[in-house]
């Protein structure tokens, strides 16, 4: 008995009863299609949430000086004056895991234009800051390196500041506004980002060259912070470690030795990783939930195969008897039924994959839900459905093979 013939026999048996074969496949088709669709939706929302976090700057790292102790009294957070431009420069030059970096200094005060005024904060940064915070300039343009070198009195306004200073819809670009008593020329307006998930207005800020803030407003030689982006979210940890070691070296902080403990860091590094981790675990949970539901439907599909194969063994008793009388051995009958089950589940699997991919795109187009079809989910559901076919086809096949030909041939 060769395998080609077995396949031919099984194929002819399937073709001889198309409706029954189709109904058998239906369970598997629905099972596989739902697994793929559910996973596509789950993965899609995960990716969409990830990109939302990334928009908030999930890979953002904030370095601030530590709190000082003066005469036993702990001062404000970030009160130390230990962060210098040289720290910024050496992190920029030496850290492999960051893609953008900017020093930050800031001051709060009143902005005035004509007879309107509004309180806000002015941030002294470099143009990279836009990348780090995922900001973009809507009208006008960002200041340049030349502006930084010359400590130019130029600024970019956030949308909230614009609304408060120019309530009548005037064009802000080109106008002169005053911060406290210092005049700044508006060269651009930031695109609105709205409120973040913590309820903070992300548009209530003004950007200016850091040199301008340091020299003309604060008159300081240190910087108040450094913001940077890790290349990807996953590299945040590596970047943090590296920055720590660079800063400890720059600040000549001693590592732990046999006789003394290590000096404390005189800076703090914060990242958004915790937020990202939480969001990921939420979407992972959702994906698992969807996969479970889909898995159950696949199982039901498998039981459907067993059910119909089982009934089909009874229905086809006479056929089995005939096959045995013309020389089919038990193993031939077993193989035939098993191959039938496999052919049905594989065919059902292929149709299910096509249907699932189609349904995923339909969901994407009609309901505007984000989807992501991953090859492993297609492969997984396909393998599972084939395994289901073999597993659930085995018992009916075994039963068919054990029939007594004498009784089977006379079965009515």
């Amino acid at each position: 008995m060769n395998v080609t013939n077995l396949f031919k026999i099984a194929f002819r048996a399937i073709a001889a009863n198309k409706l029954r074969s189709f109904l058998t496949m239906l369970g598997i088709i629905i099972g596989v299609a739902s697994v793929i669709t559910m996973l596509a939706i789950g993965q899609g929302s995960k990716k969409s949430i990830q990109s939302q976090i990334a928009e908030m700057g999930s890979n953002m790292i904030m370095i601030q000086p530590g709190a000082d102790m003066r005469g036993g009294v702990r001062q404000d957070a970030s009160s130390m004056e230990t962060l210098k431009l040289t720290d910024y420069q050496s992190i920029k030059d030496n850290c492999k895991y960051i893609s953008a970096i900017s020093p930050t200094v800031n001051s709060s005060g009143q902005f005035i234009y004509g007879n309107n005024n509004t309180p806000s904060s002015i941030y002294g940064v470099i143009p990279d800051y836009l990348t780090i915070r995922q900001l973009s300039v809507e009208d006008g343009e960002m200041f340049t390196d030349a502006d930084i070198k010359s400590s130019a009195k130029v600024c970019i306004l956030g949308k909230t500041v614009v609304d408060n200073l120019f309530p009548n819809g005037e064009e802000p670009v080109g106008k002169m506004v005053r911060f406290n008593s210092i005049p700044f020329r508006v060269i651009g307006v930031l695109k609105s980002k709205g409120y973040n998930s913590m309820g903070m207005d992300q548009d209530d800020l003004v950007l200016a060259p850091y040199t301008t803030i340091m020299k003309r407003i604060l008159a300081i030689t240190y910087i108040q912070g450094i913001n940077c982006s890790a290349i990807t979210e996953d590299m945040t940890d590596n970047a943090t470690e590296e920055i720590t070691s660079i800063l400890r070296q720059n600040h000549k902080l001693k590592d732990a030795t046999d006789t003394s403990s290590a000096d404390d860091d005189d800076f703090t590094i914060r990242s958004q990783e915790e937020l990202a981790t939480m969001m990921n675990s939420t979407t992972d949970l959702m994906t698992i939930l969807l996969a479970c539901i889909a898995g159950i439907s696949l199982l039901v599909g498998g039981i459907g195969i067993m059910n119909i194969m089982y009934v089909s063994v009874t229905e086809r008793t006479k056929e089995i008897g005939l096959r045995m009388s013309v020389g089919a051995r038990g193993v031939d009958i077993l193989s035939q039924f098993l191959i039938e089950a496999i052919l049905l589940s594989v065919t059902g699997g292929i149709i299910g994959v096509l249907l699932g991919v189609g349904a995923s795109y339909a969901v994407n187009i009609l309901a505007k839900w984000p989807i992501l079809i991953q090859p492993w989910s297609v492969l997984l559901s396909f393998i599972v459905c084939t395994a289901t076919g073999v597993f659930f086809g085995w018992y009916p096949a075994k039963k068919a093979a054990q029939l007594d030909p004498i009784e089977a041939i006379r079965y009515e």
Partner: protein
Amino acid sequence: MDEKNKNDNHKVVIELQDVKRNFVVGDETVHALRGVSFKIYEGEFVTIMGKSGSGKSTLLNQLGCLDTPSSGEYLLDGVSVRTMKKPERAILRNRKIGFVFQSYNLLAKTTSIENVELPLMYRSNVSAKERHDHAVGALKAVGLGDRLYHKSNQMSGGQMQRVAIARALVNNPAVILADEATGNLDTRTSFEILVLFQKLHAEGRTIIFVTHNADIAHYASRTITLRDGKVCSDVQNDNILSAAEALATIPQNTDE
């Protein structure tokens, strides 16, 4: 005597030596065959007759290698069947025996040629082309050369039985076992099938025809009658009637 010569010249296809078959039903043992012995030679057309309960079916199962004797010996083409395992008997059936059943037992919604190919499908040493050629040959031999691709549900009873006979012929068996092969057919079609069996007999095939219809014995070369699990008579038929002549006397069916 003719019989003597025949027995000398022809080899033994089937030899039963005191075959007994007992079934245990509950506490009782039913003796379906109580010691049956006979030889069937190549080229014989034997009818096995008997009332229901005479052991006919049990004997047919023995002859068809579907079952094994409780005691005694059964040699098919010189091979002992009694000690064979199920898979070995399946292979033996595939090579040596062609079955024809009362209810045709064709595969549903399957073409004649695929039905006839079936026994050869279970052999690995027959190529697809050989299989097809053999099947076409067998179908032509039963007069269905023009019905190769008709499905079983598109044919009359007589045609279906011809397909079944073609299926029995396709593996060139040592013996054709027919079990009430005309039982489901009307008189005219029965005679058509009998004509076919006589033609096959004339071509030298060995045929065993199990039936309870005494008329069929007239068209066979030998009749073995069973009663209560034993052979009660075994007679040669010296005056074989021609089924073709009988068929000529039957009026054409008008409703077909």
